[in-house]
């Protein structure tokens, strides 16, 4: 039973995280991008971007996996308290905190803390409902997920296909602003968990993971920047810009190494090295700004 619950949590968690990721899909301002099917019409030039404007932001699940691999220990005390959900009363707060609770759900699931994960799953469901996003999951899909709860392979395949349904739902219902806020909340919580798990003297691997988020900040700002006609989102944009200013001081040294390909197993090992350079001062500033913004979102 415990195993089943864990699988259920993982499945739902992936669906939620998928939902947050899906909102990081082609932007609406690109004239080539349609609003129904995500199909890009051929442009006049020989080259164009695939899927319109792509915002590549790592999912909280992926970031939690990276964090765990880096050796960071589980710390439930830093998660957003589940009891706070009743404090959130606006669409803006619901969307951002859906991202936050979704990241917490991913974090607890990756670290195999099923009891904690159950609490966050409930909050995620409540906020999905408040935002009207439950409609993205049709009854047939939900039934199939329930039936396949013991079959991890089928479940993950189902969850993957559900991602696309959510993508279309958000686009068709003109909810890109909500989507952008969910992604922002999820990303901020992920980085917040990282900086507060490791404290003032982070392990070099964790520090590296935080530094590598430089590109994600750029993408996040671009996505949030599309919706700044809303005053609350404009304020969030300003705060994120301050974080970007610090990230601009992070540098990377890239060294190309010839990759090795294993034809039999259809796998290429990429051996190039990227070394991020981040000073203690910049790390401290990023940590403080991330923590401050995250705390204002969860209303600490």
């Amino acid at each position, binding site marked *: 039973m415990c195993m089943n619950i864990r699988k259920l949590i993982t499945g739902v968690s*992936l669906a939620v*995280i*998928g*939902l947050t*990721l*899906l909102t*990081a*899909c082609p932007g609406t301002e690109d004239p080539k991008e349609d609003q*129904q*099917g*995500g*199909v*890009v019409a*051929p442009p006049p030039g*020989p*080259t*164009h*971007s*695939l*899927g319109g404007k*792509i915002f*590549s932001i*790592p*999912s909280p699940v*992926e970031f939690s*996996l*990276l964090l765990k*691999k880096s050796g960071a220990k589980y710390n439930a005390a830093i998660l957003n308290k589940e009891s706070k959900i009743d404090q959130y009363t606006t669409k803006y707060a619901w969307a951002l905190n859906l991202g936050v609770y979704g990241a917490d759900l991913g974090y607890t699931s990756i670290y195999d803390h099923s009891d904690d994960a159950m609490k966050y799953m409930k909050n995620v469901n409540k906020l999905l409902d408040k935002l009207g996003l439950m409609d993205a999951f049709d009854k047939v899909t939900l039934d199939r997920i329930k039936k396949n709860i013991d079959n*991890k*392979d*089928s*479940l*993950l*395949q189902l*969850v*993957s296909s559900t*991602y*696309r349904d959510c*993508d279309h739902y958000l686009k068709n219902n003109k909810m890109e602003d909500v989507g952008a806020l969910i992604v922002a909340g999820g990303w901020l919580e992920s980085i917040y968990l990282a900086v507060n798990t490791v404290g003032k003297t982070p392990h070099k691997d964790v520090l*590296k*993971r935080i530094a*590598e988020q430089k*590109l*994600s900040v750029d993408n996040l700002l671009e996505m949030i920047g599309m919706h700044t006609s809303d005053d609350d989102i404009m304020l969030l944009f300003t705060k994120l810009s301050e974080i970007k200013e610090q990230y601009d001081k992070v540098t990377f040294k*890239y060294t*190309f190494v010839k990759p090795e*390909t294993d*034809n039999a*197993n*259809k*796998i*290429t*090992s*990429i*051996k*190039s*090295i*990227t*070394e*991020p350079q981040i000073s203690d001062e910049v790390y401290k500033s990023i940590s403080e700004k991330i923590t401050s913004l995250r705390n204002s979102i969860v209303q600490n």
Partner: protein
Amino acid sequence: MKKLFITALITGFSAISFNAKAQMCDTIADFAGKFFTSAFISDGQSYRALLVDDQTAEFQTTFFGGTQYRISAVSGFSENALVFRVLDEQSNEIFNSAQHSNTPYWDFKVASTLEVTIEAQLDQTYTKTGCAVILIGFKQ
């Protein structure tokens, strides 16, 4: 009234044509998804483009160090109609599916985080036009 009717008719045909294309891409995306085993978690997006002749579609993404990724790339319902290349930030070619019989999927084991560009082009011996779909997943 006649003008209005013609406009409505054209709009209707365009919508039907568009929906048919979108549906076709949805079906191709499902086909591309068949190359994902349960070991891989989708990044949640399906990258799509309608390509004609020698057009190239491209996009940038980040591969994080210590992670194994799978790229699945197809056009139409042939497994080999799309050629895809993966390039690093200095445009060094990391992978070219044309050198592997236009394989519809390939895995990438990443030692250190890097930015990559993925380019996709139709193999015109198979088709001159089609919906190209690329999916990315990471291993648990």
